[in-house]
C-alpha cells in the first residue's frame, strides 16, 4: 500500500480544514512517511517526500511567510529569502492522486468556475474556497506557461486578502528583455525579504547560497539525463514524472541537491534494465489518479526515457548576479513565448534520446499544451518520430476514459513494434 493510499484511507471523508491545519495531522503524515508501509521506488523519493511534507507542514502551520508559486517561479528566489514556497498546481496533483479531486473541483463549480477551465486550477480553487489550502502571504505568478495561474491566483488573492505579483516575462529575443525581467525578480525579492526581515546584504547572501545549491543540483540532474540517454537506464518516466515537484519546488534547497545526488547514485548502482525497450517521450503531465496507461506501456515493452516537464532547460547561474541569472533561467524556458520554441526543444530531445515515439497527453482545459499539440506533433514527425495525442484530464478522474485511451495507446504501440 502506498503512502497516499494509506493517508486517503485514514482521512478521506473526515478531512476538515481544521484537520489539515493541525499539528496532529502532520505528525500522522510524517509518521506514515517513515513507516515500513511507505516503500518508495527510489531512495531519493524518501528525501523529496520528507522535504515536501516538512515544507508543506510549515506552510499549513504558518511557521513562516508562505509564497504561492506557479510552475515557472524559480524556487531559488523564495528559498533564498527564507520563505516557504508552495506550488498549488503540484498540490492539486497530490489531491488527485489521493482520489480527492472531484470533491474540490465540484466546489469550484459551485462558486462559479466553469468546467471548461483547467482542473488543476479548479481543484486548487475548490480547496482554497473550503479552507484546505495554507494561507498565502504572497501569490507570485509567472505569466507562463499558461494564463490560468495569474488568473486563479488573482481570485485567491482576493479570497485571502493577500497581495499578488505577476512577473511579466518578455517575449524571447527582445532587447533588454532579460534586464526587465531581472528588475521584476529583484522587486519580488525585495517584497520577500521584507517578510523575512532581510537587509540587502542578507538578501544577496541568501540568493547566492540558493543559487549555489541549485547549480550543484543541476550538475546531478545533467548526469541523470546522460544516464537516461543510455539504452539500459532503469528510470522510467512513470516514476520520473513525479520529479516535477522537485524540479519546480526544491531547486535552491539542500533536499533538492540530495534528491538528484541519490537518484544519480542509485541509477548507477542499479545498472542494466535491458536494451530492447521502445524508447518514448511523454509530453505534458500524466493522470495522477491512475497507473493504467503505464501498465499498458510496460505490457508492450515501452519505456518513457524522457519527459517534457522533468528535464533541465537552463544553464548554471551566477550566484554573484542572481537576478540576471534567474531571469535567464525563467525567460529562457521553452514554454515561454510561441510554440515553435517548445516544438523545437522537444524535437531536439527526440534526437538526444534516440526516441522511437512520443505521447502528448492533452490535459483538458490546458490551452498551452492542447493548443500547441498539433504543431509539436508536426515538428516531431518531421524528425521521423511517430506521435500520439491522447485527450484526457490529469486531475479529474471522471473525465478519464481509460478503455478508450488504452485502445488508442495500444494501437500506437503496435505500430511501433
Amino acid at each position, binding site marked *: 500500500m502506498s503512502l497516499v493510499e494509506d493517508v486517503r484511507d485514514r482521512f478521506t471523508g473526515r478531512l476538515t480544514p481544521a484537520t489539515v491545519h493541525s499539528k496532529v495531522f502532520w505528525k500522522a503524515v510524517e509518521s506514515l512517511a517513515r513507516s515500513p508501509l511507505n516503500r518508495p521506488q527510489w531512495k531519493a523519493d524518501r528525501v523529496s517526500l520528507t522535504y515536501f511534507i516538512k515544507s508543506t507542514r510549515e506552510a499549513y502551520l504558518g511557521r513562516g511567510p508562505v509564497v504561492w508559486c506557479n510552475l515557472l517561479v524559480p524556487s531559488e528566489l523564495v528559498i533564498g529569502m527564507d520563505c516557504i514556497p508552495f506550488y498549488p498546481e503540484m498540490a492539486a496533483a497530490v489531491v488527485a492522486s489521493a482520489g480527492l479531486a472531484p470533491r474540490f473541483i465540484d466546489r469550484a463549480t459551485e462558486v462559479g468556475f466553469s468546467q471548461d477551465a483547467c482542473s488543476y486550477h479548479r481543484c486548487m480553487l475548490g480547496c482554497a474556497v473550503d479552507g484546505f489550502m495554507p494561507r498565502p502571504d504572497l501569490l507570485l505568478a509567472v505569466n507562463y506557461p499558461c494564463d490560468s495561474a495569474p488568473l486563479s491566483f488573482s481570485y485567491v488573492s482576493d479570497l485571502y486578502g493577500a497581495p499578488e505579483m505577476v512577473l511579466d516575462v518578455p517575449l524571447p529575443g527582445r532587447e533588454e528583455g532579460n534586464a526587465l525581467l531581472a528588475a521584476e525578480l529583484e522587486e519580488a525579492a525585495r517584497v520577500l525579504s521584507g517578510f523575512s526581515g532581510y537587509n540587502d546584504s542578507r538578501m544577496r547572501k541568501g540568493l547566492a547560497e540558493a543559487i549555489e545549491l541549485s547549480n550543484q543540483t543541476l550538475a546531478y540532474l545533467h548526469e541523470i539525463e546522460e544516464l537516461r540517454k543510455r539504452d539500459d537506464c532503469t528510470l522510467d518516466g512513470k516514476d520520473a514524472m513525479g520529479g516535477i515537484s522537485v524540479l519546480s519546488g526544491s531547486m535552491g534547497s539542500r533536499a533538492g541537491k540530495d534528491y538528484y545526488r541519490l537518484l544519480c547514485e542509485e541509477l548507477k548502482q542499479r545498472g542494466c534494465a535491458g536494451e530492447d525497450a521502445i524508447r518514448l517521450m511523454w509530453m505534458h503531465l500524466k493522470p495522477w489518479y491512475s497507473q493504467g496507461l503505464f501498465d499498458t506501456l510496460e505490457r508492450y515493452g515501452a519505456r518513457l526515457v524522457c519527459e517534457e516537464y522533468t528535464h533541465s532547460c537552463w544553464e548554471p547561474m551566477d550566484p554573484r548576479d542572481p537576478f540576471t541569472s534567474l531571469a535567464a533561467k525563467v525567460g529562457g524556458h521553452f514554454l515561454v513565448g510561441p510554440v515553435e520554441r517548445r516544438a523545437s526543444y522537444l524535437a531536439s530531445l527526440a534526437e538526444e534520446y534516440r526516441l522511437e515515439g512520443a505521447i502528448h497527453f492533452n490535459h483538458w482545459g490546458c*490551452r498551452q499544451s492542447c493548443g500547441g499539440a498539433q504543431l509539436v506533433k508536426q515538428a516531431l514527425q518531421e524528425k521521423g518520430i511517430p506521435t500520439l495525442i491522447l485527450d484526457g484530464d490529469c486531475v479529474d478522474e471522471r473525465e478519464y476514459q481509460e478503455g478508450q485511451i488504452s485502445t488508442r495507446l495500444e494501437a500506437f504501440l503496435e505500430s511501433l513494434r
Partner: protein
Amino acid sequence: MHEDNAVAWFCTYTPLEILDASGLTPVRHFGDPGSLESADSFLHPAICPYVRACLAAAIAGGGPHHAVFVNSCDGMRRLYDAWSDRFRDDFVYLVDLPRNPGAGSERLLAREYKRLMRELSHSWGREITTGGLLEASHAREERRLDYLRACEGIYGAARLRLAMEAHTRPPGDVLPEASEGGGNHGAPVLLTGNLLNPAGLVSSLDRAGASVAWIDLCNGDRAFASPTLPRGDDVDGLLASLARSYLDRHPCARMSEPERRYDLLVERVRSEEARGVIYASLKFCDSYLYDFPRVQKRLQEEGIPLLRLESDYSDGHVGQLLTRVEAFLEML
C-alpha cells in the same frame, strides 16, 4: 518586400496607430463562426472559438493573411502559432503585452512598438515619421469619437454591428447608418464579456426584449471607451505615450488590476441606468472563465442583478437561451 497593404488584427490592444502610420490597412478579423470545425486539425476544439473561427476563415481564403497579433492570452498566442506556421510567406508578427501597469511595463511596451515599427519598415520599406504617427493617432481618435456619437440611441445587435464596422473600416471612412436600433423598449441592461457574434447571442437578447445600452465587449463599446491619443515631440516620445495609453485604457479581464475593472463596470451600470448585467463570454476564454465569480460577488455587493450566458460564437443554441433571458428581464 510585400506589396499588398491589408493586415489582419484580432485583439483590441493592437496599436492600430502604428499600422495606419505605416500606410497599411488594418482590418479586424472576426472569422467565420459557422465553420469552426475546419480549424480542428490545427487547433484543439477546447480553444477559444473566436480564435478557431479566425483560423478557419483564413484557411478558407478569407481576409488578409498578413497579420499582427498581440500576446494577450493563450488563445491569441496559439492563433499566432498556427497562423505563422500556415502562412509562412506573409508578414505575421506577435506584439508583446504586459499585464501589469507601471513604468517597467510602459517601457517594455514602448520598446515593443518600436520593434514593430522596425519590422514593418523592413517588410514594407516605409518609415514612420513623427508627423505621420501623430496624424494617424488623431484619425483613430476621430474614429473613436465618431463611433461614440453614432451609437447614441442604438442598442443590442445593431450597436455591436456598428462597433464592428468602426473596427473594420479605415479611419477616414464614414461610418454607415446603423440598422434598426435593436431592442430599445425593454429593460436597459449592460452586456459584459469578451467578444460575441452579433447574429447570435446578442440578437437573442434583442428578441427577448432587452435594451442593451452598453456593450462592454472587446468588439463592442469597450474598445472605444478610452482615448489612446499620444502626446510627444518625437517618435520615441509618442510611442512611450501610446504605450501608457494602451495600458491605461479600459482593461479586459486578462489584465491585472481587476478591482479597477469592476469599478468601471459598476460606474457604467450607474451612468447608463442599467437595471442588470448580462455576463456573456465565449467558451474556453480563461480570462473570463476565472473572472466570473469575482464579478458576481462585486455585483451582488452593489445590488445589481446578473445573468450569466455562454457562447460558442456560432450560437446555434441561442433559441434555448430566450427563456432564461426573458425570465431575467421580467425579474428586473
